[in-house]
């Protein structure tokens, strides 16, 4: 297994949010998590990435053969975990390209690779940006500052493409994207699919999962995975809505 979450409980500001999540992802797989607002999907993503203030009270997470919870956020990133955030942060004064290169070099260094040359970096960054429909001006701007919602999401995917993670967690990367952008972003993800790389895709919409076809779909409700199935589960949710779905569960 690449990622193994067992009986994970986590609280934010003393309030229990995750109440026993178990989930295992093998290399090469794409898993999707769906679930109503406030059910704990982003919380799970932040716990995976190691954000401060998200307190794990019970359970374990293994990433490859490492104890993920014992690692600092940057160590997780260097070990190959990537989180595309639901709300990417704007950082004035830090250039997008400069930041990308710093991040890439930090990760390469941890993997025992040499720093990438400026020319090679620029070639790669431009190439990926072009494929994702990110203009040169966006590359040169301050990180996410003044980017539209869709531009921010594409920029997250650009970072993912350059950092080449082993596991990418995409938190609602499809929200706020127009139809063409959705396809572009999905293609960006599909290009990266490899037998040794996995994805955990958090989304509200079946539409994304038509482009990025998942192996497994989980439904999270109130901090727990309530059901796990194949792609058909997403279609079922789309038809019935959470209420109908939950009603049936309760019955």
């Amino acid at each position, binding site marked *: 297994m690449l990622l193994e979450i067992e009986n994970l409980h986590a609280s934010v500001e003393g309030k229990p949010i995750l109440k026993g999540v178990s989930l295992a992802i093998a290399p090469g797989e794409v898993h999707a998590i769906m679930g109503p607002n406030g059910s704990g999907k982003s919380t799970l993503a932040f716990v995976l990435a190691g*954000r401060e203030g998200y307190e794990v009270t019970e359970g374990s997470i293994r990433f490859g053969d490492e104890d993920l919870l014992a690692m600092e*956020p*940057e160590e997780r990133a260097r070990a190959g975990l990537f989180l595309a955030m639901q709300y990417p942060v704007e*950082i004035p004064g830090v250039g997008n390209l400069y930041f990308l290169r710093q991040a890439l070099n930090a990760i390469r260094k941890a993997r025992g690779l040499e720093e990438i040359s400026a020319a090679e970096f620029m070639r790669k960054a431009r190439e990926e940006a072009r494929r994702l429909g990110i203009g040169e001006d966006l590359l040169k701007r301050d990180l996410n500052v003044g980017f539209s919602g869709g531009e921010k999401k594409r920029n997250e995917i650009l970072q993912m493409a350059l950092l080449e993670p082993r596991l990418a967690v995409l938190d609602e990367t499809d929200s706020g994207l127009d139809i063409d952008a959705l396809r572009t972003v999905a293609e960006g993800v599909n290009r990266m699919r490899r037998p040794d790389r996995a994805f955990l895709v958090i989304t509200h919409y079946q539409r994304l999962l038509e482009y990025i076809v998942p192996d497994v779909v989980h439904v999270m409700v109130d901090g727990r995975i309530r059901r796990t199935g194949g792609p058909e589960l997403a279609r079922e949710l789309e038809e019935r809505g959470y209420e109908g779905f939950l009603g049936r569960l309760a019955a």
Partner: protein
Amino acid sequence: MAVVASRRRRVDPDPSFFALHRAIAPQLWGGAEWAALRTRALERFRALGIPTRRDESWKFTDVVRIVNRPMRPAEPRPLPFAEVRPYLLGGSEAVRLVFLDGRLVPEWSRTEGLPAGAIVESLADTARTRPEALARALEALDDGRAFTALNAAFLDGGAWIEIPEGVALAAPLQLLFLSAAREEAVMAHPRCILRVGRNAALTLLETHAGLGEGAVLANVVLQLALGEGARLDHDRIARAPRGHALLVKLDGSLGAGARYRQTTVVVGGALVRNEHEVRIEGPEAECLLSGVAMPRAGEQVDTLVRLHHCAGGSHSDQHFKSIVEDRGHHAFAGKIIVHRGALKTNAYQKNDNLLLGADAEVDTKPELEIYADDVKCSHGATCGELDASALFYLRARGLDPETARALLVYAFAEEVIARLTEPSARAFAERMLLERLGSDFVSPESELLAEAR
């Protein structure tokens, strides 16, 4: 009795100031009228006394502790080029006056290549060639400030600078003030008077640097006058070692349509205090002031601005920042005064402070006084720590926490540093910033420089 003493707004200067004046004033340049001027100023200093924290404009600063003690002018000493070189800014064509301990050092100064009519000379020369003009200029500045009076009382080193009408100096003018620590406490009181004539233009690099740690007071007064349509870009950098106190009073006036742009970067010092009193006297003038100070443990930086809009249709914008580490202290007091009749004034002021420790101290006091109609004014201050979500974002992309922090601090300071107009001044300030951030940090700027090579 102790309580009474601490309530006083000023205390008597240490007797050593007067004893010293008796001993050394007779040896300073000029005849009887200059001696009289110095003595009048000393009496003014005596009457004003040294301000305590009871004095509104010294509320956040204990200057008595720093300056009210025996100090003397430093003995002249040689100044090897190696000590000057790091601070030479403005390129090989720059006009330059180098002061050591308040005295002009002709050896490293450079006034060649000045256009016809331009004057760059030492005050001692001005006292001979234009005594009335100098006396008038000195007496015109009576700001009720003890240190201005003290500066006049020990009037010795300094410069008179005049850029004539319509002349734009191609190369920058650097005023480099070096202060070297000695065994005993030393003080210097340089004064510079600078006039940028009608439609004339100048880039001024004002650099203060301390050599060695120790008790040093540099008490500087600058008088700037911008004529109608004149333009002055003023880059200011101060780097003060431990124990150094640097007090700079800048008194400026702007004529109609003049454009004054100042950027200040300050690192270090027991106390670095930049006081500004700027009067916009003619309509349609523009005054842009910005600065960043980086005090760390045991250091204090004061930024004081009194900006007068006396004529209408003018624009002023102030943006002062500070990055304060644990037990560092920044005090900002900024006042915009829009006088009667200064219609259609735009005046903005912002003070943003970044606190990098639980014991970082910031005092901020933005003020507005408006006596005219139809004006647009705003002011505001912020104090905050590094943005936790930004830090997390950077770390989640693999940056270690030190680099992530340094990058965010860098970005905060860079906004101001980027406004320095002269490239060598910008590069110098950049290096100062990087020193503060630690050696491992690679800035975008230095990365670009490395690649350009």
